[in-house]
């Protein structure tokens, strides 16, 4: 578990934007995987399988009332607000806007399916085969999905993220 916990946590964090939610989802993914371990084919790599479970749980979490209940509880009891890290006063905005954060914000403008393939391939650096396992599709599908997602990301950057123009200039 310790080998894979970082990857699961990071994928959940990328999809949900909240560390507490990501922690919950990663834990639940491990619990479900443990209970379903008999169904894992021998020889099948475990990491993409765990990431597939994590992605499913994160998708459900995004849609569920659970986040709303958690948010309400945090608001009422003055616990730290959820969401995205590195919130800073606007006066520091220029120097603190790291390009990686901008890139993540750009990716989050895309459709969920585009986000997921980019998170797996580019943020978590999975191979095409691993990403295909995690998404439950063929490797060729990952390639074409990545290509389309990158094209949409490029358009989003050109439209809304001037600070990332360097990424797409002459590319």
């Amino acid at each position, binding site marked *: *578990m*310790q080998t894979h*916990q*970082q990857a*699961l*946590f*990071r994928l959940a*964090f990328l999809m949900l*934007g909240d*560390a507490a939610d990501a*922690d919950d989802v*990663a834990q639940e993914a*491990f*619990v479900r995987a*443990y209970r379903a371990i008999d169904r894992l084919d021998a020889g099948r790599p475990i990491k993409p399988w765990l990431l597939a479970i994590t992605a499913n749980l994160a998708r459900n979490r*995004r849609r569920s*009332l659970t986040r709303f*209940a958690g*948010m*309400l*509880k945090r*608001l*009422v009891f003055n616990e730290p*607000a*959820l*969401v*995205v*890290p*590195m*919130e*800073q*006063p*606007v*006066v520091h905005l220029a120097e603190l806007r*790291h*390009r*990686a*954060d901008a*890139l*993540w*914000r750009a990716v*989050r*403008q895309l*459709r969920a399916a585009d986000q997921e393939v*980019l998170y797996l391939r*580019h*943020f978590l*650096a999975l191979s095409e085969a691993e990403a295909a396992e995690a998404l439950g599709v063929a490797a060729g599908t990952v390639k074409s999905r990545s290509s389309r997602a*990158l*094209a949409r*990301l*490029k358009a989003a950057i050109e*439209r*809304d*993220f001037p600070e990332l123009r*360097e*990424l*797409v200039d*002459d*590319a």
Partner: protein
Amino acid sequence: MNETRFDARMRDHAATLAYPPTPDIAGRVWARLSAGPQRRPQRALLASVVAVLILCLVLSAVPETRALMLRVLRIGVVQIVAPEPTPTPHVTVPSPRPAAASATPRPTPKPVQAALFPFMGKTTLDAARKSAPFSIPLPSLPADLGQPDLVFIQRQFDEAVVVVLIWMDPSDTTRARLSLHLLSKNVLAQKFAPRVIVKTTVDGHPGVWAEGEYPFVLRSGDIEVRRIVDGNTLIWVRDGITYRLESRMTLDEARKVAESLR
């Protein structure tokens, strides 16, 4: 596009993203697994429902939070979880001049609480006007307001679109003077426990005036926008778009600004 080059650059940038530290997930999972027997999915679902009910009961038993549970109002796409509406505003932020004539914002020693970063979708007014599925009017009052200093556009599957316009306080660049949200259908915004709520109109369109500090959360799949100005909010609906004007103005002043949108 040279896809390979873009692909490589993106990979390099993505690799530098700062994640929160990974918690001890493995330890907690082992603790969970050794704590109890396996629950069936139906039982888990039932447990979730019960947990939410218990949460509601607990919240309603706490005096400070009971008011939160009393009433849910809806104006456009904004839900307001709030006490009973009060007939007249009893908290009025003083303003030296009416909005129509105010040339400079009222200085106040209180620092702005709402952080403006990180919002998704920073853009320009022109770009936002090109890509938004609705028109983006600007207030012509106060007379010195001009164009917004910050513009954000966020979308979720093209069906839920949020435009946020922010005018910074010229006397204090760390705080916002005024902000205007334009929320399309399919967005859900929630506001918790404002001190005063008054039903009103803007150019004959239904509106709500909310006073006091309160959390504001915008939900359109991802939660990205929070309250920007520590003050009061005028919310109204026109042609299917919900407008939120945050400012430190009074109701009359805010309504004049709202009615000046062109």
